[in-house]
């Protein structure tokens, strides 16, 4: 199976601070990569580079067969990002937000209505986002991320703020059942390992482990978070 993501020697700085250092990985299409590491390990930066929102300062990144950042425009629209920020305007309704993103991605409005139903937000779709609970905002954010049927999903703590019913409801959209190539970060290693085909453990921006979930024992995980 062809690799959806190929990263080699990736380095990224913020000012004097090196956030990612010589990171290499590859992920076959249709697989799930769990990125583990404590706060500040570089997980979110890696996701933002893969989302084409940040440029790598060194190394090679190839996404869906296109080299970044030179061919970033060719993969935008094929990636769905669910980050810490919902990327929704607080004073617009959920429906208005999704229609706005649908216009940018040239998606028909029928898809917006279908997704509002799929995330259980059809009744609150006309409420301003600022009036919704965090869990509801997260549901809308999931709908926004998958609106354009992306080939690659970048999920930063995708289940945060969701109750068990919400997690179950969103599983077909962002879970393994979606069949989409996924990169996900989580502070819950056991949950992430359970659904991952590959694991990337980051420690201080360096690769501490990359391989099958089975190769990472409990002691190594504990060390990663201490």
């Amino acid at each position: 199976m062809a690799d959806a993501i190929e990263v080699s020697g990736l380095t990224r700085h913020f000012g004097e601070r090196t956030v990612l250092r010589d990171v290499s990985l590859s992920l076959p299409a249709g697989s799930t990569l769990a990125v583990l590491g404590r706060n500040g390990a570089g997980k979110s930066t890696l996701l933002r580079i893969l989302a084409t929102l940040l440029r790598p300062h060194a190394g090679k990144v190839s996404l869906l067969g296109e080299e970044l950042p030179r061919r970033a425009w060719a993969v935008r629209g094929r990636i769905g990002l669910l980050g810490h920020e919902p990327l929704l305007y607080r004073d617009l309704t959920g429906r208005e937000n999704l229609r706005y993103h649908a216009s940018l991605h040239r998606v028909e409005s029928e898809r917006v209505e279908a997704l509002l139903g799929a995330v259980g937000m059809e009744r609150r779709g006309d409420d301003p986002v600022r009036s919704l609970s965090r869990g509801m905002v997260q549901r809308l954010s999931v709908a926004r991320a998958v609106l354009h049927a992306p080939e690659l999903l970048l999920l930063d703590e995708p289940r945060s703020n969701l109750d068990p019913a919400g997690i179950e409801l969103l599983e077909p959209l962002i879970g393994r059942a979606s069949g989409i190539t996924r990169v996900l970060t989580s502070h819950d290693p056991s949950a992430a390992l359970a659904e991952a085909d590959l694991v990337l453990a980051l420690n201080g921006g360096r690769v501490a482990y990359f391989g099958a979930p089975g190769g990472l024992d409990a002691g190594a995980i504990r060390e990663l978070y201490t």
Partner: protein
Amino acid sequence: MRAAWAILRKDLRLELRTFETVPAMALFSLTTFVIFHFGLNRDQLTGQLAAGVLTVTLLFAAMLGINRLFVAEREQGGFDGFLLAPVDRSSMLLAKASALFIYMVVLELICVPAFGLLAAPPRFSSALPYVALLLVLVDLAFAVIGALVSAIAVQTRARDLIGPIIGLPLLVPALIGVARGLGPAFSVHGSQAPSGKWLLILALYDVVNALIAYAVFDFLLED
């Protein structure tokens, strides 16, 4: 064009829902006219003085709009949402410049009649067509330069300072053009028609700035 229209529609909807920008610009302008009215202690302003009061007030009011133009994009993730979409980056420039142009036109629909009442320039009614023509041209300059400056300023911590610091010097030629053009329109004697020279200068200034903004805007949005 489709993306620019989507962004513009979203911006106008947000403004209609929050009333955060245009009312502030209008209130600022009206207050400034009142301050000038009492500060200059004149019942009537004429010629270049009247033109200066009107244009300087509009320029500072425009700065309020410029400072707020990208705030929602920055604070609510609009930049990231836009950058993830497969659309031309210049559609953001077109949308933001259009939004600012619309804000300025709405502002002037409120403020120019108020200026007529408070400053009472001579032959004000008959000068309105010329005033409108010059204001449309200077609004285009405010819109294009404002969108560019706002996109730069919003990336910085001191965006409320950076906007005026960069924007005001860039807008000085437009201010000169519109003030000199409006002077004759508010004069007691002579032709009310603005000199073709100032119309041409403003139009050229608009075109040059639009080309520069189009050329550099992509780089402002990229990391």
